[in-house]
C-alpha cells in the first residue's frame, strides 16, 4: 500500500511540474516526443559493453532539467525507485561473466561488471528521458501530440480517461488511509478485513464518481473530443530542437567522444 501511495503521489507532482512556463515547456509536444524516442533508440542501440560511449548522452537530461526548471533531486529519487528491476537483472552479469575486460593498474574489471554498469547507465538514461518528457510536457499535451501524429482518437481518449481516474482513485485512497491512521493511533499491520473493506469502498466511490464526472462532462458539451487550451503550432524552434538533438545523438552514437577527449588530454599531458 505504501508503494502505491507514494507512486501515485509522485504522479501528481510530475503533473504540477508540467504546468511551468519555461522554454522547454513552451516547445511543441510533438518535437519533444519525437526527440525522446530518437534519444532512447540511440541509447538502446549501443553495444553491450559500452560505457564511455553512453556517457555523453547525459547531456540531454542535464540540459533539459536545467532549461525546464525541473528538480534534479526529485527525478533522481524517482529513478532510484524504479531501479530495482534493472538492477536485479543486471547484477547477475558480474557473477556469470568473469572474463577480465579492463585493466586498471593492479585491478582487473570483469566484463560482467562492465556490462552491468552499461545496463544501469542505459536504464538511468532511458528512464530520465521518459520522466523529463512527462514533467516537461504533461500527459495531456503528450496525448494531443499522439493524436496529431496519427494515433487513434479512442486510444488517446482512453489514456486520458484512465489518467484522470487514477488521480481520482489516489485522492480517495489517501483520504481513506489517512482516516484509518487517525483512528487507529498509527497502528501497524492493517487488518485483512479492514483493508478489503477499504478497497471495496474505494472502488464503489470511484465508479460512482466516474459516472458523475462523465455526466458533468456531458452537460458541459463534451462530445467525444478533448480540447486543450494551447493549440499546436510547429514553429522553427521546435524543428530546430528536434533536428539539433537528433543530429547530436547520431554524432554521439557514431563517435566515442569521451575516448577522443581522453586521448587528446593524455596526449597533451605527455
Amino acid at each position, binding site marked *: 500500500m505504501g508503494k*502505491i501511495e507514494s507512486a501515485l503521489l*509522485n504522479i501528481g507532482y510530475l503533473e504540477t511540474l508540467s504546468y511551468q512556463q519555461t*522554454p522547454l515547456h513552451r516547445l511543441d509536444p510533438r518535437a519533444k516526443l519525437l526527440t*525522446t524516442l530518437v534519444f532512447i*533508440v540511440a541509447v*538502446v542501440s549501443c*553495444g*553491450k*559493453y*559500452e560505457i*564511455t560511449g553512453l556517457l555523453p548522452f*547525459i*547531456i540531454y537530461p*542535464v*540540459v533539459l532539467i*536545467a532549461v525546464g*526548471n525541473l528538480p534534479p533531486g526529485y527525478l533522481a529519487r524517482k529513478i532510484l525507485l*524504479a531501479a530495482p*528491476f*534493472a538492477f536485479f*537483472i*543486471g547484477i547477475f552479469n558480474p557473477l*556469470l*561473466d*568473469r*572474463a577480465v*575486460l579492463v*585493466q586498471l593498474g593492479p585491478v582487473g574489471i570483469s*566484463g560482467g561488471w562492465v556490462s552491468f554498469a552499461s545496463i544501469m547507465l*542505459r536504464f538511468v538514461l*532511458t528512464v530520465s*528521458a*521518459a*520522466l523529463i518528457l*512527462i514533467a516537461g510536457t504533461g500527459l495531456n499535451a503528450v496525448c494531443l501530440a499522439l493524436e496529431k501524429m496519427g494515433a*487513434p482518437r479512442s*486510444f488517446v481518449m482512453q*489514456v486520458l*480517461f*484512465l489518467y484522470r*481516474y*487514477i488521480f481520482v482513485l489516489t485522492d480517495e485512497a489517501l483520504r481513506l488511509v489517512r482516516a484509518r491512521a487517525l483512528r487507529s493511533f498509527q497502528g501497524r499491520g492493517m487488518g*485483512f478485513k479492514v*483493508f478489503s473493506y477499504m478497497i*471495496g469502498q474505494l*472502488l464503489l466511490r470511484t*465508479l*460512482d464518481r466516474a459516472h458523475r*464526472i*462523465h455526466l458533468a462532462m456531458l452537460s458541459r458539451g463534451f462530445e*467525444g473530443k478533448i480540447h486543450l487550451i494551447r493549440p499546436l503550432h510547429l514553429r522553427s524552434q521546435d524543428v530546430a530542437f528536434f533536428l539539433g538533438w537528433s543530429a547530436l545523438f*547520431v554524432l554521439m552514437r557514431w563517435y*566515442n*567522444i*569521451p*575516448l577522443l*577527449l*581522453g586521448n587528446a*588530454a*593524455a596526449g597533451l599531458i605527455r
Partner: protein
Amino acid sequence: MHMADALISPAVGGTLWAAAAGLTAFSARKLKKNLDEHKVPMMGVLGAFIFAAQMINFTIPATGSSGHLGGGMILAILLGPYAAFLVMASVLTIQALFFADGGLLALGCNIFNLGFFPCFIAYPLIYRKIVGARPTQGRILLGAMAAAILGLQLGALGVVLETWFAGVAELSLSTFLLLMLPIHLAIGIVEGLITAAVVSFVWKAHPAILTQAPHPPAVRVHSHKPLLLGLALFAVVAGGMLCWFASTHPDGLEWSLKGVTGREELAGPKEGVHGVMAWIQEKLAFLPDYDFRKPEEEKAGQKEESWPEVSPGKSLAGILGAAMTLLLAGVIGFGLRRYYSHGKG
C-alpha cells in the same frame, strides 16, 4: 512480466511497436463503428482498476517468485476484445511513462505480450468457444481458466522469443523456455481462478454484460449498480487474498532470467578484422544487430578505440575522457540554470 528497454534491441522494439500500433488502430476503428457512449468512462475506470490490481504482487508457492495480474482476460470478457485491447494498451502506456515499468521502446513488446494474446487469441479461440452463448458456472470456470493459462503461456513465449531475437541476454532458448513456461503456468492458474471468480460474479449480478461483450452492444446500460457491486466484492476478495501473498520477491520474468543468464564465459578479445570496410560497417551500423556471444568482433571494427580491450593506457584515457564529459555536462547544466533563472528574475 514487463519487458524492459535494457533487454531488447531497437529492431525488436521497432517491429513490435509497429505491430502494436497497427492493432491499436484496428481496434479503434472496430470500436468506433459501434461505440456505446457509456463504454468510454467504463473503460477508463476498468483501466484504473486493473492498474491498481497489477501493483499487487502475489507469491507463487514454493518457487520464491511472484507475479501480478495481467488483467487482459478479465477486460476481454467484460468489454470485448477491441475495447479490452485499447484499455490494456493504455494501462501499459501509463505504466511505461510514469513508473518506468517496461520502457518506451519496450512498450510495443508489452502491448503485444499482455494485450494481443489474451484479447485476440485466448479470448475468441478459447473462452468464447468453451463458454458459448449460454454461460454456466462450470463453463465460465473452465473457459476463464483455460484462456488465462493459454494467454499467459503465449505471453511468456513472446517474452522469450523477443529476448532471444534481441540477443542482448545470453540465454539458451530451451533453458529459458523451460524456466519461463512452468512459472507462467502457475501464474496462469492463479490468474484463471481470479478471472473466473470475477466473471461468474458479474454473470450472476448482470448476465447481459457477458452475452453482449463479443459484439459491442447497442443497448444502453442505465444502472451500473449490480455490476459495480460485483466488482467491489471482487476487489474485497482479491485485495484480501492477494495482499496476503503480496511480496517483494522478484516476479516471474526476473526469476527466470536470474536462473538462466548464460553460463558461457566470454571469449577473450580477438584481434579482429581491421580496415576501411570494417570501419564503414561500424559507422553505418546505427542499429547493430549486436549478438551477445561475439561482442568483440563487432567491437574489433572500432580499431584501437574499442573499449573492451585490456590495456591500462586505454582505460586511463577512457576514464579521463569520461570524467571530462561528465564535468562538461555538469557545467553546461549549471550554467543554463543560472542563465534562465536570471532571465526570469
